[in-house]
């Protein structure tokens, strides 16, 4: 098994007719993902990468019985796209878009929570379940099915670490890039809780970074878990008050430092890798 994405997942792509949407739809289909349709207002009736395009999510859902959506809508309309998906009853929403105004996200999250949907992202690479496919832009070929649940706030860093794991002969159950924004749909603790219940997952690797206190919250949750967790935190050399690429990667006063996160995780009994190269070994130790 795995979490969130399996053989019952039917994906639509919001913003499918855009350059990004079309390109990644092709890749998702190539990865084996069951992409059943796409949505672009005023482009209904077209076909992209062999799947039908609809004007609204409601239409797409009615026609395809989709239960997941991948959003490639530009920042100005992305929060609305999230609300549309959630309101139409889509239960898994993956929002790739970077640059959504945070005020929009505060509104979108009200709808996501009210509708009981799971939102991954925004400003994330999405997720994949090796063997079933991917929703988003993660390069699928670096994965192998296996026992490691993977959660990260970063994109390319995820690919680095997954490559190291795969290179070390360690496969993955499900991998999730949770997003680099200050307000994201689901946090480390949410996914840890899913991995805790997933029979395939034996150990979870989480890659945190500076900013916010999701890693500290995760540490609290980990104390209640039966499965081992291995962590890495980037940004140890980041100065306070500077936004390090991700809108959410910023140390405010004493909040959000790498050291604080490392300490919290260690206090929860989590081995924290000094460099990413130490991760495979730490995983092997607890497997």
């Amino acid at each position, binding site marked *: 098994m795995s979490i969130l994405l399996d053989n019952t997942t039917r994906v639509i792509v919001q913003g499918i007719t855009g350059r990004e949407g079309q390109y990644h739809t092709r890749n998702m289909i190539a990865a084996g993902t069951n992409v059943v349709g796409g949505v672009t207002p005023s482009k209904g009736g077209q076909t992209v990468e062999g799947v039908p395009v609809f004007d609204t999510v409601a239409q797409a859902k009615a026609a395809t019985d989709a239960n997941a959506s991948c959003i490639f809508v530009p920042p100005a309309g992305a929060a609305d796209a999230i609300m549309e998906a959630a309101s139409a009853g889509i239960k898994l929403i993956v929002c790739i878009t970077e640059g959504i105004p945070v005020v929009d996200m505060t509104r979108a999250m009200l709808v996501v929570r009210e509708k009981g949907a799971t939102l991954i992202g925004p400003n994330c690479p999405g997720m994949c379940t090796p063997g079933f496919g991917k929703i988003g832009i993660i390069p699928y070929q*670096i994965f192998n099915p296996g026992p490691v649940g993977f959660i990260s706030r970063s994109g*390319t860093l995820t690919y680095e670490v997954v490559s190291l794991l795969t290179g070390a002969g360690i496969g993955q159950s499900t991998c999730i890039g949770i997003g680099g924004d200050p307000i994201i749909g689901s946090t480390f603790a949410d996914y840890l809780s899913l991995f805790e219940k997933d029979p395939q997952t034996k150990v979870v690797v989480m890659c945190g970074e500076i900013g916010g206190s999701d890693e500290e919250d995760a540490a609290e949750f980990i104390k209640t878990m039966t499965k081992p967790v291995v962590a890495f935190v980037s940004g140890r050399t980041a100065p306070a008050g500077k936004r390090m690429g991700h809108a959410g990667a910023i140390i405010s006063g004493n909040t959000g430092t790498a050291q604080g996160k490392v300490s919290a995780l260690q206090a929860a009994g989590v081995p924290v890798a000094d460099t990413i190269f130490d991760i495979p070994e730490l995983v092997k130790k607890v497997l």
Partner: protein
Amino acid sequence: MKIHEYQAKDILAKYGIPVQPGKVAHTPEEAEAIARELGEPVVIKAQVYVGGRGKAGGIQFGDTPEQAREAATRVLGMDIKGLTVEKVLVTSKIDIKDEYYLGIVLDRKSQAPVVMVSTAGGIDIEEVAEKTPEKIIQQPIDMRWGLRPFEALDIVTRAGFPSNILRQSAAILAALAKAFIESDANLAEINPLAYTTDGKVLAADGKIVIDDNGLFRQKEYATWAEPEEANPLEYEAKQAGLTYVKLDGDVGIIGNGAGLVMTTLDMVARAGGKPANFLDIGGGAKAEVMYKSLTFVARDPQVKGILVNIFGGITRGEEVAKGVIMAQAELPKGMPIVVRLSGTGAEEGRALLKDAGLDWGKDMRDASEKIVAAIARTEKGL
């Protein structure tokens, strides 16, 4: 994006929040003229993007226009935490009886703007939060409604504001919330909210930070961007569309993906180097972006060598290599460059780099160690 006090007050005033009359001056003469126009004692306030300007002498008074000029002469050009004061706000002096705090800040945990109100105004709210948290009333805003008048009233009442200023304070707080939401703010603060000896309630100081992601629709505020004295390169990078943060080491660092670049900084530090900057070229960058990034990083006079760390996905290795080769010709002669490429097009890219005689690392650690060593060699004149 940070904005100045006078700009924040312009926003507050637009939402009906009372502020003292005032204008910004770039010269002592302008300050004198503004003081004359106001026709009353003024306060001269340094407009810089850092706190603590009062302690640094950045706030001075002038009872006459001449004194205002003199005060402005002292404040303009002053250095405050590394920033040179280039403009001052000249505004009516008020006689403050009591100081309060009104703030709204984006809260990640509640995923909403959170109102923070305290009778302990005029001082650093983080200090209050640490020492006497019970003096702060916090409440998230229900973003379907915004902050409704009765909620604002309830908050200032619970915070212990005196009854006679409740109505005005609540109206100001509700307006502040509206300003926050409609301006795409991350932070909006009135500190102090002043209760003057003549019975007025007004925003004696204001601070607003605008969400960079909201600037595309905050067209007026977007024009307020200006170089931070201490970081002219960061300002220019933003104008050029580069995600760049200036640090104080000598190893220029470029990578794709924020997490990867942050990890690269950590790795360089581990290898004994000091990162000069953070530069994320994002996803799918072409040779031109790589070229632009390298030449930009090299403009920092502290930079003695550059590490490029790319994990190719949408970004292709050949494009990266081409950009590096293009840039090399324009970089200071002998400046070491180490490139690490993996993923899509890595083979092709490495071949190009090899042909151009450029150094490369097999992974992030190797590349980090190589650039640190190369800089050390250059330093020693080897």
